C-alpha cells in the first residue's frame, strides 16, 4: 500500500489530503489517483513536483509497499 499525500492547489481543488493506494510504479499510481476524483487529471499530476519518501521522484520511478508519495503543485511568492 502506498500512502499518497497531496499539497498545494491540487489538494485544494481536489479536496483530497491523503489516501492509500495500491501501485508498483508511479505510472500505476498516477492512473489510480486520477480514478479517485474527477478533479484530478494526468495534466494536473504532470504539473506536480513528486517526492518519494522525501526524495525527488518522477513518473518512471518504481514503488515499494509502504512508500509515501507526495504530489505538490509548484508554488512561489512570499
Amino acid at each position, binding site marked *: 500500500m502506498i500512502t499518497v499525500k497531496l*499539497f498545494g492547489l491540487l489538494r*485544494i481543488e481536489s479536496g483530497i489530503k491523503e489516501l492509500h493506494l495500491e501501485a508498483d510504479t508511479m505510472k500505476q499510481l498516477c492512473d489510480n489517483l486520477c480514478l479517485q476524483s474527477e478533479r484530478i487529471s494526468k495534466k494536473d499530476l504532470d504539473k506536480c513536483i513528486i517526492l518519494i519518501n522525501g526524495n525527488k521522484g518522477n513518473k518512471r520511478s518504481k514503488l515499494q509497499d509502504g512508500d509515501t508519495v507526495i504530489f505538490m503543485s509548484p*508554488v512561489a511568492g*512570499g
Partner: protein
Amino acid sequence: MSLKYSGYMGKVMAVDLTTETVSEYPWSDTERELYIGGKIMAARILADHLTGKETAFSEDNWVVISTGPLTGTGAPSSARFNISALSPQTGILASSNCGGSFGLYLKKAGYDALILKGQCRKKRWLEINEEQFIFHDADELWGTKTGECQEKLIELIGKKNFGKLCIGPAGENLVKYASIVSDERSAGRTGLGAVLGWKNLKAITVSGTKMVPVHDKEQTAQWIKKWVSYLQSHPLTGKQLPKLGTAGLVSSMQMHGLLSTRNASAGHFEDFEKVSGETLAEEYNITNKGCATCPIRCARTVKVYDKTVKGPELETLVLLGGNIGNCNLQKILDWNYELDELGMDTISAAGTIAWAMEANEKGLWHNGLSFGSIDTLSSIFDDIAHRRGIGDELAEGTKRLSEKYGGKEFAMHSKGLELSAYEPRRAVGQGLGYAVSNRGGCHLNGGYLVILEGLGLNVDSQTPKAKADFTMLFQDLMEMISASGQCLFTSYAFFPAFLLNKPNGMLVKIVNFAATHVGWAVRLINKFPRICALHLPMFHHTKMFTLAIGMKMDFGHYIEIGERGYNLERMINNRFGITAENDKLPKRLTNVPQDPKHPETKVPLETMKKTYYQARGWDKNGIPKEKTLRRLKIK
C-alpha cells in the same frame, strides 16, 4: 506648472512638525527620470540630507513617504507607497512598503511625496487635503490600537473615502520594530512606527479628488487589460496566490528544507501541516482579498475573536509556527491580528521571541520562554508594545538582546533586522541576499533568490555559482518595481508558465542546470544593462512606463534605475558605518551544516560576497567605487 511626464502630481511637500509649517521641496523632471519615485526617490532625498551623524530618534531624521508614478494610473497592483527614514532597529536606512490606500489618496490630494521633519511639540495627528495641512491634538487617539485609531479617524473626518496611516501602542512606546498601519496593511519592517512615535505623530489622513494624469489613456487601458489577463492566467499570480496566498509556500518550504524551525536551527518542522497554507485554506480562510487595483488578491481573510480580519502571511505562519515550536494555527491567527493592532512587525516580533526561547533554554537569559510554550505569548506581545516587564527588553529586538546576554551565533538577524522565514542553508543565494540587503535581513530586498532555489525553479540550492549575479539582477529589478509604485508580486509572472507547469520536464531540467552556468551572461547584463534595450514579452512593466508615464523605458534602462537606487541606499548606509564586515549572517548559518551528513548545507557567504561586490562595482570593503557612482549618475 507643466510636467514633462504623466503619472506625477508634481509636488513634494516638506512638513516641519516642530513649527507646523509646510513648504514645497524642489523636485525636477530630471530627478523624476533618474529616481522615479518610492524608495529610490526617498533614497535621493535622504542622501542629500543625511551626513552619517544622525540617529533614528532625532529631529534630523526625516521621514519620506513617497508614491510611484504608476500609483493611481490603474496599473495592476499599483496602490503601493513607501516609507523611508533612519531605522531605530538597524541605525541605517530603513524602507518599508505598504499596500494601504494612503498612497492613492496622497496623489488624489495632489502630492507625490511627503517629507516629515522635526518633532511635534505635543501629541498630534495631521489632516491633509488639497488645500491644507491641519495639525490636530492627538490626546483622544493616543493609546489606541491601530483598528480603533482608524475608526476614530473616520468619525473625526466624517467620511470613509480617504487615506490614512497610523501607529499603535508599540510605535508610541518606541518599540524598535514598531510598524505603521494603513487600512489593514502594514509598513511592517524596520521599525518606522517608532520613528513616528518619537515624533509624537499618531496618524496622518489625506483626501482629495484629483486624477492622476496618464500619457496615452487609450493604449494604457488596453495594455492594462492585457497585463491583467496575463497575470490572471499565470499559474502563480492567477492561481496559487489567489487561492492559497503566500501561505501556500509553507509545505513547499518544508519539502526543500527551507522552513525555519526552532530559531532556524533546522529547516523542517515535524508538524508543518497543521500550520500550512492548505490547512489555513481548508479550515480557517473565508475568502481572498487584495489591495486596491490588484488582480492577484493574495491576502487571506479569517475569523478572529468573531471579527473578519486579514489573515497571516507566510512569514508569520512560519515564524510564529515552527520557528517557535508552535503548531496551533488558531493562535497564529490571533497573534497576527493582535500584532497588527498593537502596530508591531510580526517578523521581528516572532524572531525576537524565538531567539529569547533559545537563550532561555541555553541558560543565557532566564526569561521563562521556551519552544512550544505559547500560553503567555498574547500577554507578552502586549507587554512588548507597552514596554512592561520582560516586554521592555524584548522590545529592543534580537541584535541588542544577543549583545547583552550572549548567543550572537544564533541571533537570526542581519544588520539588526530579524531574518525572514526562509532558512538559507538550503538556499545559499537567499543567504547572500539576507547578508547584503540594504535594510538588513529581508528576503525581498535581498533579491529573493529562493524563487530559483526551490520555490519556483529547482536550481542547485547549494552551489554559490551564479548566485551573486542573479542576486544583483533581482535586487535591481525589485528596487525599480517598488519605486514605480507596484507590488513585487507582479514580477513573479516573469517566469514563463511552462517552467512552472512542467517541473519534471526535460526543458525545466535544462533550465535548472543551465542557470548556474550563465552567471557570466547575467553579469554582462548587470554590467551593461543597455544591451537589453527592449521590452520583454513576460515583463509588462517597461511598456507600461512608456504608455502611462510617457517616459522612454526598456528592460535595460529599468534595471539600471534599480541599480542606481540600490547603490544610493548603500552609499547612505556606508555613511553610517556599513562595510563588508556588516554584510554577515549568524555563525549558525555559515559554520554549522543544517544536515550534519551533508556538510555543504551551510551558506558559503564569503565566496559569494566577493563575487557580489565585483558584480556591483564595489571595493573589497563593500563600498561602491567612485566610477560606479559616476556611471550611475549618483555623483
